[in-house]
């Protein structure tokens, strides 16, 4: 418990620091899965670790100690956690709980709203919604079925092949349910602030994933790159639609274009192993710390029984 209990926090910081690089270097589908599932496991591990730290303090409160039948003195003697650390954990828990509840509610409402909007959109049985308003825009709205929304202006300025890229890109977002990965990681980052860079990294990975899917669908990565760059340049500095302060979701178009012009992504087995290693270490450490904490309290109980 002396070291183990802090490992999930250390691993989360490491994961958070590496995330932007991982999103760029790993193959995009794998990056999306590793980063989102990894974030959830790390956030859960760190939350349990915080709870364990707080427990060592709570257990020394006389009321709780008598309720659990252990002696305060014995617990204090064997407690490896400094009082200030335990107190800090105790304060952090309700704050993080509030943040994670808020993030969960907000994101769920947003997804429900998107589904509802999809039901209200005119249905022509094709999933394509064309906006006649001026402006260059294209996006995927998750729903059942999800919709691809594009502005007519964009369709008219792109070449046929580029049009296919945009459609295939958005279809990939819908088919792979990318919004779920982003939602999971947003909630995980609320629970564990060390993961604050993860939502952005996962959004980037999903965009890359959809880019590669579109490039594969039309069989030409350079055309996919041009479609992306042209759309970005045509949309200019004009804000594509209201409420798009997507600060957390900034996708770097230039990096995506560069990636499409470079060689297809490599499998990167070593990097993959490192990422899995970080997550596994955190999960095992918190398991071990829980066992240690259990033994600590048991020890304090035995002392009280032997008296």
């Amino acid at each position, binding site marked *: 418990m002396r070291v183990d209990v802090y490992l999930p926090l250390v691993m989360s910081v490491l994961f958070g620091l590496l995330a932007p690089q991982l999103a760029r270097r790993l193959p995009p589908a794998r990056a999306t899965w590793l980063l989102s599932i990894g974030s959830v496991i790390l956030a859960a591990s760190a939350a349990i670790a915080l709870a364990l730290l707080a427990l060592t303090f709570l257990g020394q409160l006389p009321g709780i100690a008598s309720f659990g039948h252990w002696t305060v003195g014995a617990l204090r003697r064997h407690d490896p956690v400094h009082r200030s650390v335990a107190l800090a954990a105790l304060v952090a828990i309700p704050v993080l709980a509030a943040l994670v509840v808020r993030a969960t509610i907000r*994101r769920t409402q*947003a*997804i429900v*709203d998107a589904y509802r*909007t999809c039901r*209200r*959109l*005119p249905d*022509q*049985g*094709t*999933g*394509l*919604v*064309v906006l*006649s308003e001026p402006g260059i825009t*294209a*996006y995927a*709205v*998750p729903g059942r079925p999800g919709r*691809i929304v594009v502005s*007519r202006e964009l369709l*008219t300025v792109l*070449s*046929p092949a580029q*049009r*296919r890229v945009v*459609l*295939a*890109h958005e*279809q990939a977002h819908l088919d792979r349910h*990318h919004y779920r990965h*982003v939602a999971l990681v947003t909630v995980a980052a609320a629970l564990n602030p060390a993961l604050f860079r993860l939502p952005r990294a996962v959004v980037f990975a*999903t965009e890359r994933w*959809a880019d590669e899917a579109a490039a594969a*669908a*039309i*069989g030409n990565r*350079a*055309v996919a*790159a*041009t479609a992306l760059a*042209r*759309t*970005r*340049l045509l*949309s200019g500095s*004009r804000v*594509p*639609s*209201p*409420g798009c*302060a*997507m600060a*957390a979701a900034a*996708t770097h*178009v*230039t990096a995506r*274009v560069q990636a499409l*012009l470079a060689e297809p992504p490599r499998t990167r087995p070593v990097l993959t192993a490192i990422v899995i290693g970080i997550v596994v270490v955190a999960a095992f450490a918190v398991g071990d710390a829980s066992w240690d904490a259990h033994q600590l309290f048991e020890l304090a109980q035995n002392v009280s029984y032997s008296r």
Partner: protein
Amino acid sequence: MVKGRRPSGALETEVLAALWASGEPMTPAQVQESLDSGLAYTTVMTILSRLHDKGAVTRERSGRAYAYAAVLDQPGIAAAQMRALLDRGEDRAAVLARFVDGLSGADERALVDLVRRADTRGD
């Protein structure tokens, strides 16, 4: 151009997008040409009649063939729905996967260079 098999849903979307892009009624032959994807004439025909069955396109006689056009639904309904969704806040916008974002205007030059490079390689 090497191309994998695409699901029929994607083909329907593509054909519909081509009709939208043209803005004028097109015969199957014109659609086939505007798609520029090596789709067989009969395939284009099949997709157009399927779209017509769904009510996504209208058609009128044009000589010996039909000319197809995308159906304009009541103008602005879709746009109003999307605006209503996006106006409800950042979280709504974050759920949508946007093709490009409106940020980082500084790297526009880099993009222009990249496009130039890409144009010499592909397309």
